């Protein structure tokens, strides 16, 4: 199928039916996934999917539809219904497609053509091997949630009545395993995986397997502690969850509605001077990078928090126009089924210069957080409360595993109380942070 042509036809047809502006966003994807358990293949799944979202503006009113049915009759109905839908919407002066620079997207090497040539048997072998090594890691590991391997290729076309026509291709590949340690009332699961844009960049199978095994074992016997106020270390595994809560409070439209506790903090200090937080989706070969975003804007780097000072909120074209600011951040789509909304793709908290082990050594009694259940930040109020697991720190060492406790406080206070930032930043996914120490926080338990 000539997808570019289909997108162009749909845009033209929408204009013909009276739309002032129209934009088609079309995806064509291939996916493969295998799951093995206890050495046997359980599932093999192959899929080819396509779909298109159509955005129209008529008299400053927005209509949106999507379809995976590309038959001629269905597409006609699709365009007609989308234009009709726009008519029940309320007109808004800020509605309309973005004004885009025509420039050519940078090649970030996000597509690995070799992925489609890897044979299924080889993929099954990776999934089998990673599980096998994790199961053999320790005799207390008794059961498996399985090993997996998956890969995907995605092609995106964006065509708009403003003369923009873009296309990009990307790939993703992932494998990992989950195992269970212990028995009866004392079972703990541990997962670990590796996800990259290129097959060759995947982490070592043995390393991934051992990390999964370690995660299950280290939680065995975890118990709550008494409620107390102590220094808390957010490990680089738990820190991303925390930052995701902070970032959800930076949504530009929530600021406009004064629905976030960050509303009045632009260009003011919100965190310790040691915190600089950027969004950089332009790192070559990185799985969280992109050449252009859901609106067709070319990807770029942005600094949101600079040495503790809040520099920017998160907007898409429409929310930015509404708030009367210049668009800066990335706008993302929930595949072709949604309109773009302001977002971040590859968040990086800059690293500090302290070793994590030295941070732990400097704490007499404290809590090392390995996992959070949720992000903890309540956006309207900034209250912070979240379930956590990890290790108790006693006399500068990790003493015993802890689970079933909460951390509580105020998000702004917590960020200002960040005393030390470790040097252990590793860019693995879309949210990357080194470990950091907060001078004190309430650990709520028994």
């Amino acid at each position, binding site marked *: 199928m000539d997808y570019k042509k289909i997108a162009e036809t749909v845009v033209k047809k929408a204009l013909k039916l009276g739309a002032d502006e129209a934009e088609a966003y079309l995806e064509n994807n291939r996916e493969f996934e295998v799951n093995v358990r206890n050495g*046997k*293949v*359980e*599932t*093999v*799944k*192959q*899929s*080819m*999917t*396509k*779909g298109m979202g159509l955005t129209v503006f008529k008299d400053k009113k*927005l209509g*949106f*539809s*999507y379809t*995976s*049915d590309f*038959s001629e*009759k*269905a597409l006609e*109905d*699709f365009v007609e*219904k*989308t234009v009709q*839908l*726009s008519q*029940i*919407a*309320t007109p*808004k002066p800020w509605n309309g497609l973005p004004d885009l620079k025509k420039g050519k997207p940078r090649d970030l090497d996000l597509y690995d053509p070799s992925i489609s040539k890897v044979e299924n048997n080889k993929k099954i072998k990776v999934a089998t091997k990673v599980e096998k090594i994790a199961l053999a890691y320790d005799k207390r590991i008794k*059961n498996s*949630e399985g090993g997996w391997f998956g890969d995907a290729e995605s092609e995106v076309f964006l065509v708009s009545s403003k003369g923009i026509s873009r296309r990009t291709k990307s790939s993703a590949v992932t494998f990992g395993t989950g195992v*269970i340690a212990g028995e009866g*009332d004392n*079972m*703990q*699961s541990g997962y670990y995986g590796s996800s990259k844009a290129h097959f060759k960049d995947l982490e070592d199978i043995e390393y991934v397997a051992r990390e999964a095994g370690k995660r299950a074992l280290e939680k065995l016997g975890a118990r*709550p502690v008494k*409620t107390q*106020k102590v220094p808390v270390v957010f490990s680089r595994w738990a820190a991303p969850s925390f930052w995701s809560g902070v970032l959800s409070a930076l949504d530009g439209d929530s600021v406009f509605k*004064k*629905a976030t506790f960050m509303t009045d903090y632009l260009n003011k200090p919100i965190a310790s001077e040691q915190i600089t937080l950027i969004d950089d989706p332009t790192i070559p070969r990185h799985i969280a990078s992109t050449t252009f975003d859901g609106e067709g804007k070319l990807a770029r780097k942005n600094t949101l928090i600079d040495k503790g000072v809040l520099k920017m909120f998160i907007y898409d074209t429409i929310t930015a126009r509404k708030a009367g600011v210049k668009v800066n951040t990335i706008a993302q789509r929930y595949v072709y089924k949604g309109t773009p909304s302001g977002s971040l793709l590859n968040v990086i908290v800059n690293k500090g210069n302290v070793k994590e082990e030295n941070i732990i050594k400097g704490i007499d009694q404290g809590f090392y957080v390995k996992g959070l*259940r*949720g992000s903890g930040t309540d956006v*309207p*109020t900034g*209250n912070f*409360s*979240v*379930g956590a697991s990890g290790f108790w720190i006693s006399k500068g060492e990790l003493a015993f595993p802890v*689970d*079933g406790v*909460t951390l*509580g*406080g105020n998000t702004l206070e917590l960020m200002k109380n960040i005393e030390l930032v470790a040097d252990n930043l590793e860019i693995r996914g879309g949210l990357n942070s080194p470990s950091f120490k907060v001078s004190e926080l*309430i650990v*709520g*338990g*028994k």
Partner: protein
Amino acid sequence: MNIYPHPVHSTLSDSQLGQEELKELLAIAKQNGGEFAEVYIEHTVNNNIGLDEDKISSARRGVDMGVGIRVLHGEKTGYAHSDDLSLDKLKETARVAGLIASGKAKQTDFDLKKQKIPSYYMVKTSPDRIVPAEKAKLLWKANSTARDYNKSISQVYVSYSDSNTEITIANSEGLLVNDVQTLTRLIVFVSALEKGKRSSGYAYKGGTLGYEHYNLELATELAEEAGRMAVAMLPAEDAPAGEYPIVMAKGECGTFFHEAIGHSLEGDGARKKTTCFWDKKEEMIATEIVSLADDGTIPGARGSINVDDEGTPGQKNILIRDGKCKGFLYDKLNAKLMKTKSTGSGRRQSYQHYPIPRMTNTYLMAGKDNPEDILRSVKKGIYISQIGGGNVSPTTGRFVFSVPEGYLIENGKITSPLKGIQLMGNGPDVLKNITMVGPDLEISGGGTCGKDGQSKPVSDGNPTLKVSKITIGGAKVRG
């Protein structure tokens, strides 16, 4: 009522995937010796309208159409799907799914028999026939009612959505089933702001309900309920942290049982021995006043199903009776491997997914304790009016839930509102600490459950009940 003059066009009805074609696809899927083959055809139309800041902010429509083909062979599943309904593409899809097996076909000819199925949906008027402007009236009504409710109401968001799914399932055991599944929902969210204090409230109605269940009176009712909750929570103080008895209000706390208990009673985890209850069948896992059911046959409820996504009729399954674990929820594959029968729990998000064991409408069954006595029995504790989102590990049963509406109980009476309540603990412990259960079971409007990357509509419910102790995570340390 304003409706479209003609039924909406569907490529599915044009595609002429008749019985002969289905048989041919099943034969191709089994040609490598697979033990079982299945074709799942889906056409879904979603409609959604949102109102925000006194404006209709979004009006959306979506069409999902495709065919998923599954082949089972021993413990193995081969799955492939296509959104191209041409017979050639579907034959290729069937072939790819069949590659999971290796060998020769044992049977290539199937007699498909169309099954008659019961109906648990309450649908007279299909919502897809109603023009968007008609639905928009509900949103405007809810918006103005909520704004007039109290001067502290600062934001109102209203959303109406419906989905209309036609499925056809055919398998190599000769099953052929059609079902039309309709879901509708109207939600009102409000925020309140007064003297620098913020709060929020919500209310909704939803289910396998036709458009005849939606009208301006309902919109008014929901807006007032959302407003009541936000205003009630405005003066809320930080919740105390520590261990307390709790009372859960009827109807709106069932999510707790779905998340913290139900997921640990799904058959895939039982087969894999990865959930905390896998070896507890016929054992006491709760106090003897606790009975838990998963029931796909409640008329109009959001999780109800005439058939599951493997064609097995929906049914009522007792998971815990008088404290004893009675069994697990199974799809066909896990049932076969565990030498038992499907419980009508094989559900999938769409043709792009293979079915897995899922809940439908899950609820704690009614007991005998007087709700007033339950409240009176608590000297100092927490009253949970509505439970919010949760996070649970099915392996350990450990959970954290937020509580959007909760109050302090002092000397058997509900007193001041609390914010930031987090319920923490693990499912098996809570089951042993349920000491009182009322007779006033209510099923709530329900929501959407996620598992293994698949979303599915469910609902849940509960009568008034007491848990003798549970850990509350809150911002305030007990002095």
